[in-house]
């Protein structure tokens, strides 16, 4: 780690002023679960660290028909929230799958989204949920749709002087949702993760299916081929399996020290099938 200056502002405005002053030399510190390793490895060498942990950005609320999470909501708080479990259980499931208990009690929603690891659960869930991001700087604030937020491997449209203050997503009442992931050890980043949101119509057919996959490309993304193959179809096991097979053709993942691209492709199919199967059975259980 290299020496840096440090400030822990008490208000958002103060934080934004510091970011405006130090720009690209500054780094925001939230839970530190990604930033501190980067500092230790000397991969990040900020001259100034703005610790945002004192900012009042840790609220979870339902507002204007959307579930809104402050950037400083911890993964463990998210996983334990009754409101979230009721309105948006995909987030509950996703949060519980992050790392281990130590990581979850410190890591934050904002940190995970700003860090934008392609295998991380929350970015994946936000892609599946069509979330919106609230970004603020001393210059003002802007709202960014999830499809525009992640711009590549570990990169987002956040500017150096901007703070992610909250993220919001529509509730998924009436739908069945599930996240399936595969990691080499429990608690590791997933090799591949799949999130599915399914609604069933009165005729018992798939009304809508949203499927997102992470760990494959630089950013998590939807798989329209699978979604389209299911829409309007009865959600029988073999149909789900066939639709899930399409996921394999839609991905060309890279190899690394932990798994080959070929194996990740296999996982894409299996996890899509399992996520859809669970989402469907939950959707069927929803009282009409």
């Amino acid at each position: 780690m290299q020496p840096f200056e440090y400030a822990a502002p008490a208000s958002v405005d103060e934080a934004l002023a510091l970011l405006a002053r130090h720009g690209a030399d500054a780094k925001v510190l939230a839970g530190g679960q990604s930033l501190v390793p980067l500092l230790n490895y000397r991969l990040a060498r900020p001259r100034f660290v703005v610790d945002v942990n004192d900012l009042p950005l840790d609220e979870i609320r339902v507002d204007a028909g959307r579930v809104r999470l402050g950037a400083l909501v911890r993964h463990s708080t998210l996983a334990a929230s009754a409101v979230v479990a009721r309105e948006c259980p995909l987030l509950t499931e996703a949060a519980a799958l992050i790392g281990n208990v130590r990581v979850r009690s410190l890591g934050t929603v904002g940190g995970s989204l700003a860090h934008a690891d392609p295998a991380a659960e929350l970015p994946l869930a936000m892609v599946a949920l069509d979330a919106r991001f609230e970004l603020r700087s001393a210059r003002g604030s802007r709202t960014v749709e999830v499809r525009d937020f992640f711009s590549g491997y570990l990169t987002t449209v956040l500017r150096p002087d901007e703070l992610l203050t909250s993220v919001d997503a529509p509730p998924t009442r009436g739908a069945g949702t599930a996240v399936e992931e595969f990691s080499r050890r429990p608690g590791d980043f997933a090799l591949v993760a799949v999130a599915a949101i399914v609604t069933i119509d009165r005729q018992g057919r798939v009304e809508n299916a949203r499927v997102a996959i992470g760990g494959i490309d630089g950013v998590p993304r939807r798989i329209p081929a699978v979604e389209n193959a299911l829409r309007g179809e009865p959600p029988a096991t073999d149909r789900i399996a066939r639709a899930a097979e399409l996921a394999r053709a839609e991905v060309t993942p890279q190899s690394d020290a932990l798994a080959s691209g070929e194996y990740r492709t296999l996982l894409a199919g299996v996890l899509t099938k399992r996520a859809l199967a669970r989402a469907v059975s939950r959707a069927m259980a929803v009282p009409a």
Partner: protein
Amino acid sequence: MRMIEGGHGFAGDPRAVGGVGGHIGAPHSVVGQRVVRHDARDKVQAATAYAGDWAMPGMLHGVVVRSPYPSARIRGIDTTKAAAMRGVACVLTARDVPRNTLMTDVPGQTTTVGPLRAKLHVLAEDRVRHQGEPVALVAAETLEQARDAADAVEVDYEPRPGVFDAEQALAPDAPKVHDEGNLLAHWRIARGDVDAAFAGAAVVVEGEYRTQFVDSAYLEPETGVAWIDSDGVITIRLSTQVIEHFRDVADVLDVPQNRVRVIGAYLGGGFGGKEDVTVEVYLGLLAVKTGRPVKMVWTRQESLLARAKRHPYRLRYRTAAAKTGEILAQDVELLGDSGAYAYLSALVLLYSTVTACGPYRVPAARVQARVAYTNNPPTSAMRGFGAMQTVFGYESQMDRVARALGLPPADVRKANALRRGDTLPVGQVIETHCALPELIDRAWAGLGAPTPPRAPHAKVGRGLACNLQPYGRIVWLHDWASAWVGFEMDGSLVVRCGCPDVGGGQASSLCQIAAEVLGVPIDRISVHIADSALTPLAGTTTASRQLYMSGNATLKASGELREQILGVAAKLLETSVADVDLAGGEVRAADGRTMPLRQVLAACARMGVPRSHLAVYHAPAGEPVDLTKGSGKIFPDYTFGCHAVELEVDTETGRVRLLKHVAAHDVGRAINPMSVEGQIEGGAVQGLGYAMMEEVVLEDGINLTTSFASYLIPTTVDVPDVEAIVLESGEGLGPFGARGIGEPPIGPPAAAVANAIEDATGARVTRLPMTPERVARALRLLT
């Protein structure tokens, strides 16, 4: 966890004293008890001063500059910029090293070891042969300054072609890692008529297996502090398994060996990775150059990048068996990767050669073993020491033989198990009891009722694997250990022994032995270990040898001391020596009279009878044997074990979930059952890491796994509780009949898992680690 007592009714057998200074009546009062170790108390209270906890006034921080290339010529090194940086005390290169050669053949040994001379440069001169090879040293006021300066050392490298695979290294046109060629060592065993045995076999099973590079992955990386003490002695306090490296430091610094002192701190793990020299020579150089205390702590990335690994092997087996399952012959070809330097590779390969046929009677055997240099990271000692890779080979083969003949795998193993009097293919006669059949039965029964699969795509299977592991060093090394035991005037006891404690409870076990013999409560004993200047040398904490060697030395010293004290006590009580005993910190006569120990000790002082004793234990020694003639003793003795596992395979993804693990070993005698169980549990888990996930991944010599995010080790959630079954035959050569148990439990897990995967799915995995991907491949889920 549970304990099974005295499997063969040897408990309390006076023979079990092992022939050294025994006066020990059964039952034992301290030996065999679940004593809470003093180091365990200290560790859980964070009171242990590990090597990295040491700090001194005016201390500098040392950093190693390492090669980014696996193979390159060094055209020049410019240190001017680095040396001029703020806070930098010195920058050293090969030119600054008085004697730039480090001998690495057999650490800690005092006798010549024949043809195995192995050496390397302390700092690279004109060539680097592996990524991470040390090229220069920096010391600075702060660690950050030292790191910055290390980055500023300018090394002009000319990359050269390298060779990254042992097979390719032996091709005639391969780039030479060393001028003398890439074949480092070659051992052979030829016994019996192998070809005739194969011709007459009912079944012949062939298999090729591959094992991987793995790291010791101790939680405490290589660490130490050096200073010039007030007497001018270069003093180095570090995490090491071998304090005798003080000699190597002296040789490199070109000072007399008595001007260097090494103090071994309690270790945060060794596993063989701290058997070779690590930081001590660099620390010595920096401390001498600057005249100031210097600390060096290798980062996790450095340790994973460049520290010696376990040898990857290619193992080829052909096994001939009769219809009954009787093994008729083994034809084995082994090829290991030594990486860029020899270190202990030739000896590791010897262990593989000797153990290649497993703990079985094999009347005809041909073993050919080679190890080659490559431009991969060096490989050297690691728990199991060459006797580990072979378990994956011979125990996969045993299951395949059983399967081919339609016989239960446990029965085939029991039928072939070594017995006292049998001869290993190398020609060594097994002189002690081999409890394999009982170990197999207990391990297998320990699995209990079968676990049903959790999902339609899941399949459950079981497997077992046995092993033999030598303990104690090769007999031609003429191994010895010494210990000093003495009473203070108040009757408290001091044990001094040069033995490093790697976390296995080495020091505490010595206290238990002394307490047993001298009747002193264990909390009245202070033990001083691992100081090359102040404790009698005891050799390396490696080769599962410390309880055996230092334990015997302590037993012998305690026994002699007991004689001395009882002689005086008998005089004072006017009775015979046979009628007095030491117990509860006092002298007790047969007629019920007692005398405070203090009084006896004062009398000893008055009469000129020493209140201490220094003893040396010499292991059975021998001369080097010609392996091809197959006539000789290689190791003092062996420890036998059997592990059984139950697991579940996800047949859609290849994921293996471990459900149960039972590990049974005959430890001869459990001095401290908790330490024994700790070794078995830890060894089994480390063996499961080898089986399932650990792998140093290299791409043309470049290490892709230099953090614990990519080098995966098992954590508590990845492994089931290991059930340790401890058998006590009393047959070992150690104190009270103990055998070594440090290394043995790491051997069997990989083969047991492979056998269980085949039991569950019919698919055989022949390559380690058995990652979900490799299992998926074996299940033909991938092309």
